[in-house]
């Protein structure tokens, strides 16, 4: 009996495969419905009349677009209608047993946002600068995106990186000093990378070598770095702020032609090096994780470390490697504070950005591209408050500031659906 014949026999029962059905959850429909209801309630309870002035170009742009003035109330209600339609669509689909496609959520979010902006800016004499809104969102998202990339890399290798906050802050501090002393933003950036990696090294030492619970190490590291940087700030930087704490920053490099595109040009193509680097880093991390040997081994170690060990992959070394790279990437995000955005370091200046980055990791389902978009979303939400306060928003600023956190709560509670973290994430690997 040849091998082929034997398998042919075996194939008969095997072909009768296990049945599967699609399970759908009503969670996303419920969340959309709730948001729509809240939105309608807002419009009814606090009606706003007048026009909203959308400004689509900046002074000095190549293409000047006149300010678009739209009547707020009709626009807001129209957006509400779109939201309702999207919700109805999702409800129908769920009833039919199919999952909610992402684009519906995107349409829903866009409509909701536009409507909200129209409502918030109604009657204000100020222009609502769309470029400022989006450009600011990109800037604000820089630490979130880099931090989230660092989080994704660490967690895909099985190490939960709660220390993103510590990496950002440590890197911001180091980049600040180095770029101040050397007058070179580039050297500052390099120092930030090292600082992020250094924090990671401590994380690795405790989490990988000593098998300490990774969440605890992360939380404690965050406190430790706040303490250390504040200590050094008050003891060292303050004494000679002119030399030690006045950083050299990257300046914007407009990309010819592209930066002249209306709206998107100034938002995407008139930015400092670090932001262009971010545009590259997101696909690069994706590529590295999914298409290279480094990424394959890293993911193997995060999913099934023992299997990796049995094919000769050094789990501990791979994890250290991943965590160091994660810290370095997060370090780039930290450099944003002192080499791009501001020209001095301030105590605890990251203000919890690391935790938002962590939320972006989960929101993005441990995928670098999704996580980066989640970071962008949070950047947008953070910036929205600032823009609206100048325009004169009717919503108290504290509630606007709450938005990213509430969005994250909704997200982890089911808006994005159940997601599966890397199987060995958070587990120390003990040989044998």
């Amino acid at each position, binding site marked *: 009996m040849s091998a082929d014949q034997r398998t042919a026999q075996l194939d008969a029962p095997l072909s009768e495969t296990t049945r599967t059905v699609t399970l759908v959850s009503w969670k996303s429909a419920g969340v959309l419905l709730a948001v729509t209801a809240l939105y309608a309630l807002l419009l009814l309870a606090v009606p706003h009349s007048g026009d909203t002035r959308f400004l689509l170009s900046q002074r000095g742009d190549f293409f000047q677009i006149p300010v678009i003035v739209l009547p707020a109330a009709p626009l807001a209600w129209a957006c509400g209608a779109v939201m309702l339609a999207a919700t109805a669509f999702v409800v129908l689909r769920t009833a039919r047993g199919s999952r909610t496609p992402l684009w519906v959520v995107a349409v829903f979010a866009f409509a909701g946002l536009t409507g909200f902006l129209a409502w918030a800016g109604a009657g204000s004499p100020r222009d609502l600068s769309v470029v400022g809104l989006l450009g600011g969102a990109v800037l604000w998202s820089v630490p979130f995106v880099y931090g989230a990339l660092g989080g994704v890399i660490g967690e895909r290798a099985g190490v939960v990186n709660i220390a993103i906050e510590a990496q950002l802050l440590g890197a911001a501090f180091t980049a600040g000093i180095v770029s101040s002393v050397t007058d070179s933003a580039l050297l500052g950036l390099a120092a930030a990378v090292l600082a992020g990696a250094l924090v990671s090294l401590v994380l690795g030492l405790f989490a990988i070598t000593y*098998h300490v619970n990774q*969440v*605890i190490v992360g939380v404690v590291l965050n406190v430790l770095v706040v303490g250390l940087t504040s*200590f050094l700030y008050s003891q060292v930087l303050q004494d000679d702020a002119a030399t030690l704490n006045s950083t050299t920053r990257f300046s914007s490099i407009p990309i010819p032609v592209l930066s002249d595109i209306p709206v998107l040009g100034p938002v995407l193509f008139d930015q400092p090096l670090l932001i262009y680097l971010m545009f590259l880093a997101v696909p690069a991390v994706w590529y590295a994780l999914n298409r290279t040997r480094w990424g394959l081994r890293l993911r193997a170690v995060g999913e099934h470390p023992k299997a990796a060990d049995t094919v000769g992959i050094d789990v501990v070394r791979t994890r250290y490697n991943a965590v160091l790279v994660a810290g370095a990437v997060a370090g780039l995000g930290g450099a944003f504070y002192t080499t791009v955005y501001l020209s001095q370091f301030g105590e605890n200046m990251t203000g919890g950005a690391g935790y938002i980055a962590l939320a972006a990791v*989960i929101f993005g389902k441990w995928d670098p591209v999704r996580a980066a978009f989640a970071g962008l979303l949070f950047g947008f939400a953070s910036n929205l408050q600032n823009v609206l306060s100048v325009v004169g928003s009717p919503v108290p600023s*504290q509630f606007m500031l709450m938005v990213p956190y509430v969005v994250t*709560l909704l997200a*982890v509670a089911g808006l994005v659906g159940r997601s599966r*973290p890397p199987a060995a994430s958070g587990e120390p690997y003990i040989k044998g």
Partner: protein
Amino acid sequence: MNAPESSSEESSEQEAGRDPSTLDPGTAEELEQERAREATGPVGDAAPDTASRLAKALHQTMSSPWTVSVGAVVLAIVAGSIMIAFTDEEVKAASAYFFARPADTFVALGQAIGGAYAALFRGSVVNLQAPDLLTAIRPFTETLNYATPLIAAGLGVALAFRAGLFNIGGQGQMLVAAAAAGWVGFGVSGVPFPLHLLMALVAGIAAGALWAGLAGLLKARTGAHEVIVTIMLNYVAFYLISYLLATPGLLQAPGSSNPKTPPTAETAQLPPLIGDRFNLHWGFVLALLAVVFVWWLLSRSSAGFAFRAVGENPRAARVAGIDTGRATVSSMLVAGGLVGLAGASQVLGGVTTGFSSDIDAGIGFDAITVALLGGSNPWGVLAAGILFGAFKAGGSTMQASQGIPSDIVLVVQSLIVLFIAAPPLIRAIFRLPDPNRRRTSKKKTKATRARKEAAA
């Protein structure tokens, strides 16, 4: 991401003196070990001769978690000393000519570090320079005063740990608790003393419980990870309180536009415990009662049994008919209530003159370190809370008399926790013996996985 099983398990290790061998029936080599274990007799058997018994006792002492805790504190204080030396002007000056006259540097070092720790002692235990006895013991009452919210909040975190949950939400829970207790404390009038106080306490505890319970509910219902949820709820609470404080008619003191509440009514204040001269108030007694309550809950009650079962092995708990979702929610409710007690004690005893949005004073996060240092055991939390209270009380004196920045205390505290979380590191540094010479943590990995699956 996973709940911090290490703490809870370590504490139970310490309670049970367990030999953490593995017990996966699936892999053959473990059966091999078991077999040998049965052959060689139980691990607990003491050898008959005195010498080895002594050696064993010594080994047990040296490898006990307490030794590791002490080692961690010592190490962290050494690190603090380095930072103090770094800060001190005299040391800086003397070290510039270290090789010319090294003695100067050492004298300066001794003075700086000695002075700092003397100030720490003077500010936290007893002031020997004081004119009278009452003033002399005042620092220790200050320590207890600072320890009060730390103990209560530490218990909240510890209880959650034991139920397998990592409650990072102390900040938010304290804030909403303080807001609720404060609102009752100054907003309600005409209610006589003990009743008003009771109402305010209940309001605070309930608010903390609900805020934490929300995290528990989300975890139980949707599987949302409590670490993320509690962190997010911290921010939500902070901005919510900020809004309430900035809005006239809500929490803001009437006639003022500062984001600050009116003072707590006399009838709602926790009375001084040992006289008006001291800040120590009855909140400390409440914290002690909370310690006893948590001890009873965890080791004597059926609810605590369920919490611990869910914390150690949620799958087994579920199979045994324990409603893990309910245990998650109710353990978070109790944990939040304890943290709420901390928040209430802040505004009813600690800061009765009106408060603002930083009334949590970082205690929500310090509570994590207190719980870890205390091994998630109520009595350990009491001791750790008093230690950290001493750090706070003494830190102020260190600053006032020696000009030592308070950031050092923050660093020392976090180092303590880092070191405590890594017993092997401490053992390596102090060359202590290892109580678990065999492979230890595989079981943990398994338990973690089980927990993850149960959560999913």
